[in-house]
């Protein structure tokens, strides 16, 4: 079974790195298969950008995401352009300060987090993608959360490991609380 994940945002947010960390966690630490492809424009900063990740227990035949089960949106434009692709029953994750969804399908599982604001509070908004990955670890069963954390630590500059670990944990805790809150509501 292949799981397709689409991550969208704009250049400079670390969208490609986010996809890379997910794929790395699946490949190197969960010992599964993953591909990560990217699409971007000519701008180094600010242009729209997306990263497509496929994770599977089998070697992956086709690396494009056509029917994602998970979508992570870090920009309004990315959300609007791509949200229609998300499968029924899929998980929609977004940064609540950057994306204001006009319409959300009741067929989706929806989760949002002020990832950029959290990262700013922790001293560097560049870590918003890492906060988001922590959030992903909590709310989606894509990869082992510890594998993901390990992949984050391996991917960031050694001097910034502690800060990134804290950012990841912040997102993960926030996700955990959301899940608990929903479980309480359901009971």
């Amino acid at each position, binding site marked *: 079974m292949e799981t397709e994940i689409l991550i969208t945002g704009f250049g400079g947010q670390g969208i490609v790195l986010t996809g890379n960390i997910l*794929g*790395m966690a699946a490949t*190197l630490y969960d010992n599964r298969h993953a591909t990560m492809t990217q*699409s*971007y424009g*000519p701008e180094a900063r600010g242009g729209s950008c997306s990263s497509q990740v496929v994770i599977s227990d089998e070697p*992956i*035949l*086709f*690396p494009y995401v056509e029917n994602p089960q998970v979508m992570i949106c870090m920009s309004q434009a990315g959300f609007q352009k791509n949200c229609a692709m998300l499968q029924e029953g899929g998980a929609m994750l977004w940064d609540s300060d950057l994306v204001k969804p006009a319409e959300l399908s009741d067929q989706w599982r929806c989760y949002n987090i002020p990832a950029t604001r959290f990262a700013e509070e922790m001293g560097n908004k560049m870590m918003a993608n890492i906060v988001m990955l922590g959030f992903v670890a909590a709310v989606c069963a894509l990869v082992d959360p510890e594998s993901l954390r390990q992949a984050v630590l391996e991917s960031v500059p050694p001097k910034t490991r502690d800060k990134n670990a804290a950012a990841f944990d912040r997102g993960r805790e926030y996700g955990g609380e959301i899940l608990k809150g929903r479980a309480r509501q359901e009971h």
Partner: protein
Amino acid sequence: MASKAVLTGTHFMNGDEACAEGALAAGCRFFAGYPITPATEVAERMSRRLPQVGGMYIQMEDEIASMAALLGASWGGKKAMTSTSGPGFSLMMENLGLGIITETPCVVCNVQRGGPSTGLPTLVGQADMMQARWGSHGHYEIIALCPSSPQEMFDFTIRAFNLSERFRLPVLVMADEVVGHMNERVLIPEEGAIEVVERKRPTCAPGQFLPYRPEADGVAPMACFGDGYRIHVTGLTHGENGYPAMEDRAQERMVNSLVNKIKMNRDAIISYETEYLDDAEVVLVAYGISVRSARRALRMGRDRGLRLGLVKLNTVWPFPEEFIRGLAGRVRALIMPEINLGQMVLELERCAGGRCPVRLVGHAGGSIIRPGVILSAVEDIRKEAV
């Protein structure tokens, strides 16, 4: 201690990076290049990695100079490579020809994007395939490999070096933007498990050496700068002694020699893999990233009961002419997905020679071929063939 040149282990890296690592593992110690999307990551990694292994990276003023510097470095005794994309590949055609006529081993990786001209810098294409074959003027043979994954970027780059050293010519790794930028598992073996070929060097006395006299394998030994042979190397038509020879007989001998060394060794060069050919009615013939589209289509088709097969071309030049001819006589149709409006399919058609219908599934570039489009073509051709 394991050498720093071979990063043995499992990696999650992109194809461009894997290409650079393959080059280093093959013994490449010189890189000259010019930044160009989507091949820049090869140069970036080489600029960081080559000094770690005693090699040298230089960023040249353009791709013309890059290609010239490769040839110089190769005659200086180093294994050399460059990476580029369409516009740079066009500029390299001049000295690619010099590499061919002077029989200079080196490797050029073209991470293809959409063209013509500046085209689609950040998006995929497979439309330089005929340029790879005939892009430099004059008549010659070339070797081109097409990787379909980052792992193959690593493996095929090593093979490209080995072929270039063995047969003394520039070898092309015809990658594409998706393979170059896609991250996937790359397994780098132990250094001892990697086969590395070195060019033949002369053993005779300098006075007896004829630098362009082929041995039984069609290839002449190569004397590099400083080996003491004090040879002359020229881009003019030359005799076996390397000296210019401006006459039709010399041209006939030399061009045939360039062609023959590839033709007579084509079984050692040509590489392809087959899947589900035993009962296949319709066979998909694919190379590079389009192999991935074809594989997915094959799986989907088999699930629907369609008897599909796949031929994955690892080398596209020389083209596996005899194999395709045989195959065309046994199947109902051949379909080639490629990201252009019909290039390698012309070769496929030529080799099929009318024994079965041949169809293109192509578009002008910017994205990879969707498996569904391949399946529609399969359905169409099955209807026609009935």
